[in-house]
């Protein structure tokens, strides 16, 4: 009797360890795909990465094509996106976490934010096209694209900042109120400094989302081959993902290599930003640990 039971158990244990290996194999496969993805693209693009690739404008001739305008354009785009989205996102998060009463209006705003987070980026492009490009007459400028991208990442920044504010222990708020500080003083001098690390982490991750987004730029009508650097917020421009998209679509294999090289530049930019995000996260975890 015991022997029968034991053999049943053995069978179950075999199944258990088999499944463990199967799950592990799936994880390994996912890691393998990630590696394959980076290797496949990286190997093709490395050869194109030379100085002229960074100093040349876009071109009809693949060997002359460079990312100067796209790189500068992406940086210019960020110069709009970062301040605008940070201001809107941080103010909203502070309002919702520290001031808002639990009523229907607050619930409505929160619902709006979660809806907005699920809207496909291409639809944000349609909003930007109608409101910023056409109605406000901004054209396909850095400002129009920057405002569109800011709205796109706004829900992510708000939610991340809300979580950051929530993670500040209430004992610190009590200590500050106990000293006779007003709510605003408490927010500025105690809560925000304690939450800065996590807010930066969330924000940087959403900025990297904005850097890589392509679809809204296409809908806004951002051009691809631009032979000049932007001169101001109303100047037209092109951006890294637009440039990559254009090269990827062209049939000549030389352009595919340029696209690979562009992707390497984009990914290096994003991974650097991720690195900063992780650094700030670790620092803030240390800071609030007493």
């Amino acid at each position, binding site marked *: 009797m015991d022997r029968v039971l034991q053999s049943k158990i053995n069978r179950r244990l075999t199944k258990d360890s088999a499944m463990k290996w199967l799950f592990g194999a799936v994880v390994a496969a996912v890691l393998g795909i990630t590696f394959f993805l980076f290797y496949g693209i990286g190997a093709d693009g490395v050869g194109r990465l030379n100085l002229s690739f960074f100093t040349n404008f876009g071109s009809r001739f693949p060997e002359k094509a460079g990312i100067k305008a796209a790189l500068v354009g992406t940086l210019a785009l960020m110069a709009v996106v970062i301040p605008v989205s940070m201001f809107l996102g941080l103010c909203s998060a502070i309002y919702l976490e520290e001031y808002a009463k639990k009523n229907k209006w607050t619930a409505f705003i929160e619902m709006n934010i979660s809806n907005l987070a699920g809207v496909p980026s291409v639809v944000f492009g349609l909003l930007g096209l109608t409101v910023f490009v056409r109605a406000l007459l901004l054209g396909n400028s850095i400002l129009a694209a920057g405002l569109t991208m800011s709205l796109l990442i706004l829900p992510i920044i708000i939610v991340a900042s809300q979580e950051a504010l929530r993670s500040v*222990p209430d*004992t*610190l*708020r*009590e*200590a*500050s*109120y*106990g*000293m*006779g*500080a*007003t709510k605003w*003083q408490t927010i500025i*001098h*105690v809560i925000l*400094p*304690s939450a800065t690390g996590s807010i930066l982490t969330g924000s940087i991750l959403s900025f990297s989302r904005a850097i890589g987004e392509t679809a809204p730029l296409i809908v806004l009508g951002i051009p691809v081959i631009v032979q000049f650097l932007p001169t101001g917020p109303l100047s037209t421009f092109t951006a890294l993902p637009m440039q990559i998209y254009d090269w990827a679509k062209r049939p000549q294999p030389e352009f595919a290599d340029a696209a690979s090289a562009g992707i390497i530049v984009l990914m290096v930019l994003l991974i650097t930003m991720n690195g900063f995000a992780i650094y700030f996260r670790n620092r803030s975890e240390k*800071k*609030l*640990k*007493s």
Partner: protein
Amino acid sequence: MTTTLVRPTEDAKLRVMKNENWTKAVYETNGLNLWYGTAHALKNIDLSINEKEVTAIIGPSGCGKSTYLKTLNRMVENVGDVTISGNVTFMGNNILGKAMSVELLRSKVGMVFQKPNPFPKSIYENVAYGPKIHGIRNKAMLDMIVEDSLRKAALWDEVKDRLNKSAYSLSGGQQQRLCIARCLAVDPEVILMDEPTSALDPVSTHKVEELIRTIKNDVTIAIVTHNMQQAARISDRTAFFLNGEIVECDRTSTLFSTPTDERTEDYINGRFG
């Protein structure tokens, strides 16, 4: 060289919060009732807290002693759904009225919490926080206040070489004394202490008690404690709370030696709570 701030004069105090009805009791509580939602947490509390005395508030957990303490600087309102009736005056001023600015009240009434809660800032910035938010910007003056407060809190010698280090680098007991220094920095009339030693080890507890003994010459103290020996050691008067009511309030020596109420006797003899 440090400049010690002078002792309070009757004159200085009146200049700050002048009210003709002010008598010797710093806090005067009459018929105070408080509800959390529908739960009746404080029932008809009558209690005075006298100037430059240590008033201990004892009682089993859930008896309302912390709630009462937090009513005195109106921190109780942060809990949420709170209804208060009755009368509480601070130096003759009604603190429950709409006209009372809680910020002004709290600039004169410091609070020390159960767990040490220094800000994630430097030791210096922790102590300078109160004076800064109340409008003192002068660096020399802040330096003076920080040093003076840390000296009063008997912490100066331990931290004078690392004022710019994070407050979290201090031990728990040091952190709690830092929190007391932070209160002292705004030169309050009263410090409310909510079980300030419950998270500390015996040695740190002893140091905080020592500290309370020295600063009571300067400031009125109301301390909530679940530790009856502590109340007996450091307080002048003791109030015993039970189920939201004051059972008995008397000189500490009297209350502990000859309690008039049977429940007080049971409690101080450890029969419940």
